[in-house]
């Protein structure tokens, strides 16, 4: 089974995690324009290759972690975000 490198638990099976997709911070409510909301809600990156994403270790440490994954090969390594 594919494993993800959790910085807290070590390599764990991918079925323990929930995928949250590429890092995309939510815009501030007040100054954000319609365009920014549109981008945040709908236009997720969908690259064929390496991408840094958030995963939630729901059946483990229950923390959000950052992982760089090649979406073509599914090879993973720890991400740069905390």
């Amino acid at each position, binding site marked *: *089974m*594919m494993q993800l490198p959790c910085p807290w638990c070590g390599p764990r099976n*991918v*079925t323990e995690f*929930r*995928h949250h*997709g590429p890092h995309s911070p939510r815009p501030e409510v007040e100054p954000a324009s*319609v365009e920014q909301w*549109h981008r945040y*809600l*709908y*236009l*997720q990156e*969908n*690259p*064929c290759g390496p991408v840094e994403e958030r995963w939630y270790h729901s059946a483990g440490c229950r923390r959000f972690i950052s992982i760089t994954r090649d*979406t*073509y*090969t*599914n090879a993973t390594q720890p991400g740069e975000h905390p």
Partner: protein
Amino acid sequence: MESGGAVQSRHSNRPGSGRTSRRRTRRAPQPRYSAGRLLSKGLTKADWPKVWRHHDLKPRYDVVIIGGGLHGLATAYYLAAYHGVRNIAVLDKGYLGGGGSGRNTAIVRSNYLTPEGVRFYDRSLKLYENLASELNFNVMFSQRGHLTLAHNDGGLRTMRWRAEVNKVQGVDSEVIGPEEIKKLVPSMDTSAQARYPILGALYHPPGGIIRHDAVVWGYARAAAGLGVHLHQETEVTGIDVRHGRVTGVRTTRGDIATGTVVNCTAGWATLISEMAGVEMPVTTSPLQAAVTEPVKPFLDTVVVSGTLHVYVSQTDRGELVFGASVDPFTSYSVRGSLEFVEGLASNVLKLMPGLSKMRLLRQWAGLCDMTPDYSPIMGPTSVEGFFVDVGWGTYGFKAGPVAGEAMAECISTGRTPQIIAHFGLDRFRSGRLVGEKGAAAVGH
């Protein structure tokens, strides 16, 4: 070529939706397939002629369709057959029908949840019913009935909702109880002791299965017969856009000048659209499926369980085809996984315990282009001459004929046909989403 994104055909364009007024412009010049011909070929043992051939890439095409699957080929066919546009290239980086068109589980149905969806997929079902004679190619459509099981109150409520929406649109669809289900599928465990007892099902008699390769080959043969160039192993590397309109396509086999490009690339849709500078609210996820060894015919309906994330049908060869939900994360990898077949097998046995001794023959995966509302994205974009027919998610195969028909009309006339008016890319900005997730065969 002219303004408005429409492709000028050699024949005059017929206005309106064209659903009743269309005529074929010319019959395919290929020899027709018939029983008599089959007999004579069998007696003389003569080879069948090739139905499409290799062409050199021309420097200019009126329409370039990217993606040689069902949608691309159907679009090419309807453009050539009904709109008189013959100077068309269909490009595929692999072989025809090698993507989602050859990887789906070949189920056709129209019991959707939204009126827009029901209308659209029902038109597709009607086209499928006449496809064999339309294309002069046996597509082996078997309208054996389609059962979507409900294992809890919420599921049953959605089934009733869908049944009512379907009936209003004239689609044959009703909710039936466990006794009737048992009569249709004796091998299914409908007892109250089952792990997930069956409370009822949405029964859709016109639904069924079809030979998906035959549909692809039928469209390819018919399109090639009308002069469409099918270019396999031709990967698109770039799309030229000047002053907001498409001017050409760059490929691994050379450059093409064109004013109209259609993106029919499903899982790779965002990568192709990015080449034209168009952003798409689409993500790519694999969907895995599996097939067993062939056995005697015992299952003559399509059985779907959303709760158990599985759909089952038996092919004409006797194999059981199992489909499932999309994988739980985005990816372009089409490698199968062991945890998938383990989960699939355990879920199938909860429905049909008698299958416990059957062996799986193979498993595979295809790429699904998922949209936020589970409805497709079709029609023109902000780049003039760049059309999209993407965002099919897990519904692409059933929609092939109507998508081809509607896209052909859209490209030829420059107007978006009513049947796809709600599926435009602009709906994500205006907020008029067409939520079709409730009609998904299984929970995704």
